[in-house]
């Protein structure tokens, strides 16, 4: 009974538990030993195949990049969607507050400082037209109500969240 091709291959690949039996048989069977030698030669020839050289150096392409940008891990990119979802939820939650506070905002109180700013701007323009050094007037600091401040902060928060999302998306590409 001769060794099978499978046994010889597995022996040379170190993937068999029958090493001793196979070795014993190879010592006593010329035919199997000849097949074994042929296969061993093939292994040697494949394993000694020389490396070919590249026609161009690929490393220069990376060296000229200066600073490389790593792709963010997948889990981190998912936080962009989580942030966007949170921002949306925050917006939805803030709607009742917005509808409550907007009517309370005294629009007349805002028009007065705006009018003052506009008149100051006109003063500046007049000063420039006469080519004289203008005297910089002091700007009035409008007193903001809590509701206006909250609205402004909510707006900034939403813009910041979506801005972050856009930045991360561009980095992934």
């Amino acid at each position, binding site marked *: 009974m001769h060794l099978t*091709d*499978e046994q010889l*291959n*597995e022996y040379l*690949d170190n*993937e068999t538990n029958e090493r001793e039996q196979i070795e014993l048989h190879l010592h006593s069977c010329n035919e199997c030993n000849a097949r074994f030698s*042929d*296969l061993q*030669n*093939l*292994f040697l*020839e*494949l*394993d000694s*195949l*020389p*490396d*070919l*050289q*590249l*026609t*161009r*150096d*690929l*490393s*220069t*392409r*990376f*060296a*000229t*990049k*200066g*600073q*490389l*940008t*790593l*792709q*963010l*891990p997948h889990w981190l990119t998912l936080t962009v969607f989580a942030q966007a979802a949170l921002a949306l939820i925050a917006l939805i939650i803030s709607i009742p507050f917005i509808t409550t506070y907007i009517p309370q905002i005294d629009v007349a109180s805002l028009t007065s400082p705006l009018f003052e700013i506009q008149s100051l701007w006109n003063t500046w323009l007049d000063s420039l037209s006469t080519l004289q050094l203008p005297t910089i007037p002091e700007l009035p600091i409008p007193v903001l109500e809590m509701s206006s401040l909250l609205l402004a902060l909510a707006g900034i928060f939403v813009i910041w969240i979506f801005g972050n999302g856009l930045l991360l998306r561009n980095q992934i590409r």
Partner: protein
Amino acid sequence: MNAPTDRDLILRAKRGDAEAYSEIVTRHQTGVFNVCYRILHNRNDAEDLTQETFMRAYNRLNTFDIEREFAPWIKRVAANLCLNHIESQKVTLELDDERDEDKSANPSQQVEVKERSEQIRQALSSLPANYRLVVELRHYQEMSYDEIANELKIPLSDVKSHLFRARKLLAEKLYAPD
């Protein structure tokens, strides 16, 4: 001063240091190119995929375990890319007329080595793509049968049959009497 290890270079590359990654490419590009060439047997495709391999590898550096050897990892990335390339293109592979590097001092030996290497490459190129891939992973990346089965997501029995059949075909081509 000692040259930096792959580990040092990868740590620097992870922080965005392009020169460190460029040095990694210099060290491993020949090995990766030869993986691609043995599978694809086309110099242009092999060079393009070598470049693609290093681009992909850079983007996956965060997933690379710094305690492992870099060379086997990058070669597996290359082999996978070649497999995807073969599957997507269903290419009829065109064999390049390649010349192997001269390493032997004796001119007649050089000619012999070149001719024999050429014959081996021709024989490898004549194998079906899935056979070539298994030969690559077993002989050049020294993976076990189980590792190959996991890598290619095929049954262990298919790994063995592809590998043994490939060797039989290679032997028929290389040792057939003239």
